[in-house]
């Protein structure tokens, strides 16, 4: 018996990154902008998507991949808005992986403008998994508290957008909007921040305009 040392230097997330890049290339070739929504449970991902559906539906085609541990409830809420939705049930897993998106991929119509992915509600694990998205949005709701960015740094450092949700609650809850923005920008100076409320519509126009201009950018680069 001979002992041997083998140098490997291989990324444990390498296979996920490879599948994610393939998905990104395919979606890009079809001119579809893909957006990954990541947050703790109850931050308002599905409600924001319902609002996006209302605003985008007259002029754009969107679809939603829903990631949940159990139940088809979120997909049903999206379908009720007349938007196609595909439910991924992880059966206990705390995050979506690129290979799960790959399985759904053949069902996604090539004529979409926007593909939203609603990740499993969890501010930790989903941050490690590239799903082939063009834009990663981390959502943080007012009731969660303004101290969260530095407690969950990975989600905030890997996102391009921070969407603060339930902003209508700022008058009644002790949440400092300036402080949370500073904390998030400390971790990620490039982070683009939107302050929104699905209830009174605050910030939704700016957010949709950003997604639309990102879609044009993607198509211009690919043309």
């Amino acid at each position, binding site marked *: *018996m*001979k*002992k*041997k*040392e*083998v*140098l*490997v*230097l*291989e*990324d*444990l*997330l390498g*296979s*996920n990154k490879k599948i994610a890049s393939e998905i990104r290339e395919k979606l890009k070739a079809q001119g579809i902008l893909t957006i990954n929504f990541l947050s703790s449970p109850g931050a308002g991902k599905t409600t924001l998507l319902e609002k996006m559906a209302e605003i985008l539906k007259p002029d754009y085609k969107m679809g939603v991949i829903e990631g949940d541990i159990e139940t088809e409830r979120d997909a049903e809420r999206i379908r009720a808005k007349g938007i196609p939705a595909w439910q991924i049930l992880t059966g206990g*897993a*705390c*995050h979506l*992986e690129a290979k799960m998106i790959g399985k759904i991929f053949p069902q996604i119509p090539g004529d979409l403008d926007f593909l939203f992915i609603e990740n499993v509600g969890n501010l*930790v*694990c989903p*941050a*490690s*998994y590239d799903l082939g998205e063009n834009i990663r949005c981390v959502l943080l709701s007012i009731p969660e508290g303004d101290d969260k960015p*530095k407690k969950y*740094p*990975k989600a905030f*450092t890997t996102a391009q957008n921070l969407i603060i949700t339930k902003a209508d609650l700022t008058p009644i809850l002790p949440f400092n909007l300036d402080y949370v923005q500073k904390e998030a920008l*400390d*971790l*990620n*100076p490039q982070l683009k921040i939107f302050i929104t409320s699905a209830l009174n519509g605050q910030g939704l126009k700016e957010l949709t305009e950003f997604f639309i201009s990102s879609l044009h950018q993607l198509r211009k680069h690919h043309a």
Partner: protein
Amino acid sequence: MHEISLVANLFEILEQKAKEKKAKKITMVKLQVGTLSGVVPEFLISAFEIYKKETIASEACLKIKKIPFKIKCLKCQQEMIKDDFVLICENCGSRQLKVLAGTELILEKIEMEV
């Protein structure tokens, strides 16, 4: 808590490498884990201990080398290690920094019997 899923990825690589090198068994596995990798080293070890049973690495030990979060200021060129992941230069206050290390999740090497 995605450490189990990562350990499953690790074993895919281990089995492939063992086959390639015609190993009889794997005796040691060494990982590089960055402080901003999003995983807890202790959980990786627990997951590894559960997963290794009845595999080619059933007697292997898992070693983890922690990699600190290291950044470099693009303005004053200063390099620094940050425990808080804040991207502000301690020397000149610039916000233009480059991440040099600390996000790794890498299988560095394997020790095997052939």
